[in-house]
């Protein structure tokens, strides 16, 4: 490093931190975002049957969650649906992104709009529509219907990072591969997919998170045998709010935090490579 590092003050149009309410607002926002999460974790260790009255420390609600067949069944349903929907939606999004490359500019803009629009449509509308559609074409509600519905609404999410990555790629390595004797299939396998891998991984994770988390569509489509975890939790708090809900939520929190950390570490390894 050079010994004469002169750090120029960063120019900003408006220095927000000078405003009188800046600090207070920031703290309030952060408290509002994270205090509920901390409360969930805190009360998950509550001994009392009533979630909001603290009487002592206990692991019993975790024990309850791990031994409750209904919860485990709902978790299994959620994971099956999320894994299958993630794989299908990521593959379809990848195919769409690669297919759009070959289209003329106007067609590409139209196709991208068509595939991206569901991101802006209220999910309740999609859910009602999906339910009506499945009833019309006589798809029985349950696992298959859930997987189909989740795959559909996950595609725009999986497509976002894949397309961003694709747009950032230089054409030159592809021309070089052709020049060196690679046909289209070999280019796809040896150049395109490895270069797109970070985008594909990000797309898959996003799709997985969206699917695992989904309530509205799942509530409409699940049917009796295929209750997913969010739908089951909704049922739990309707009857009564026990610390078991908090314990289950804490476990989900740990799971998603681990996933996030894994992606972060993976990216760091890739970059230092």
């Amino acid at each position, binding site marked *: 490093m050079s010994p004469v590092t002169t750090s120029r003050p960063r120019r900003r149009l408006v220095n927000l931190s000078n405003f009188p309410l800046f600090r207070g607002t920031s703290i309030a926002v952060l408290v509002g975002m994270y205090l509920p999460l901390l409360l969930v974790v805190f009360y998950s260790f509550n001994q009392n049957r009533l979630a909001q009255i603290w009487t002592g420390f206990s692991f019993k609600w975790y024990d309850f969650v791990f031994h409750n067949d209904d919860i485990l069944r709902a978790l299994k349903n959620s994971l099956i649906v999320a894994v299958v929907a993630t794989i299908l939606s990521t593959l379809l999004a990848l195919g769409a992104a690669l297919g759009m490359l070959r289209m003329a500019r106007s067609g590409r803009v139209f196709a991208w709009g068509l595939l991206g629009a569901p991101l802006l449509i209220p999910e309740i509308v999609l859910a009602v529509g999906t339910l009506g559609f499945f009833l019309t074409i006589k798809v029985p509600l349950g696992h298959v219907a859930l997987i189909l519905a989740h795959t559909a609404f996950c595609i725009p999410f999986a497509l976002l990072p894949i397309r961003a990555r694709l747009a950032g790629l*230089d054409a*030159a*390595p592809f*021309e*070089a*591969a*052709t*020049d*060196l*004797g*690679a*046909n289209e299939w*070999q280019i796809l396998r*040896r*150049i395109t997919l*490895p*270069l797109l891998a970070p985008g594909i991984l990000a797309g898959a994770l996003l799709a997985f998170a969206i699917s695992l988390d989904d309530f509205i569509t799942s509530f409409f489509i699940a049917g009796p045998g295929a209750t997913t975890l969010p739908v089951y939790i909704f049922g739990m708090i309707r009857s009564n709010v026990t610390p078991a809900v908090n314990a289950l939520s804490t476990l989900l929190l740990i799971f998603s935090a681990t996933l996030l950390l894994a992606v972060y570490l993976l990216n760091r390894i890739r970059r230092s*490579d």
Partner: protein
Amino acid sequence: MTDAHLDIRQVTKTFPTPEGGVVVALDSVDLAIAEGEFFVMLGPSGCGKTSLLRCIAGLEYPDSGEILLDGSRIDDIPAYARPVNTVFQSYALFPHMSVAQNVAFGLEMERLPKNEIKSRVAAALEQVKLTGLDRRKPTQLSGGQQQRVALARALAKQPKVLLLDEPLSALDLKLRRGMQVELKRLQRETGITFVFVTHDQEEAMTMGDRIAVFNEGKIVQVGSPQEIYRRPVNGFVADFIGETNLIKVTVGSGGFIFPGGGVLARELLAEDCEVPAAGECLLAVRPEDFELVDTDAAVVGEVVDVIFTGGLIRLHVRAGDQEIVAALPSHGVVVPAVGDQTRLRPITKAARTVGS
């Protein structure tokens, strides 16, 4: 020419513009390149030289015309099946592969046996002096090293023709000089035909066995560096290759009347150029081809600038309505000062007509 190695016949290539028009990148280009030649395609940007290179590589297809390699057509077969390889301007290395994997890629596409790939990769890396860096990723290499990987990757394929698209333009001057020498050496050692695209006339003169000068989609002149420098076919070539004075003269009975009234005798002109019977024409004279004279001066005028450049002194002389540059040896002559009247004449057979 039937014995040409790479034969380009009447190749035309157009590109549509966003406004709905058409740009003619190549206009019925004919060119014959011999086997084992270091051939340079030179021209300003947008002159069509890169388009022709990409047509030979198969990255573009000509609208019409034929490209033949050793007598058989290659313009209709896809790029991946042509026995030619390219060194790209941006190097175009595969960022996710190591140096060795980059070089091996083309050989793996040919499904060569593993041990042959290994030995050819090692040989190619040795040729470009990169031995020992085979496990590095492209991002861990300097620009010059990346350039060498790109070169090794193309050479490992042992192509019949190696196409180089302004490969040195991203390197700094010193590195560039070194690579020019090394490319010449590689070409001699391998005997592969090199087709080298550049916009740098000095580079073209240094490297080319022959040079084709492109302008506006056409080849203006093909020849050895000496031919092109000494016998440019028109004002564009004379001006583009090296430095030249393009002087508008009037053809008179005694010779050529220069601006400012000086006269150059007809006998002093280069022998192999056309001279119009009367009227005006353009004379091309290199700055270093002027000498100071006492009598029979062609350029008579006032010195407006004197620049010392080491071995040569550059005089800017105003003759009539034109400024003429002469480069004289800095020793053994009495150099005029700014404001002096001076008399110059092109040395015998140095001035050429280049049309009007």
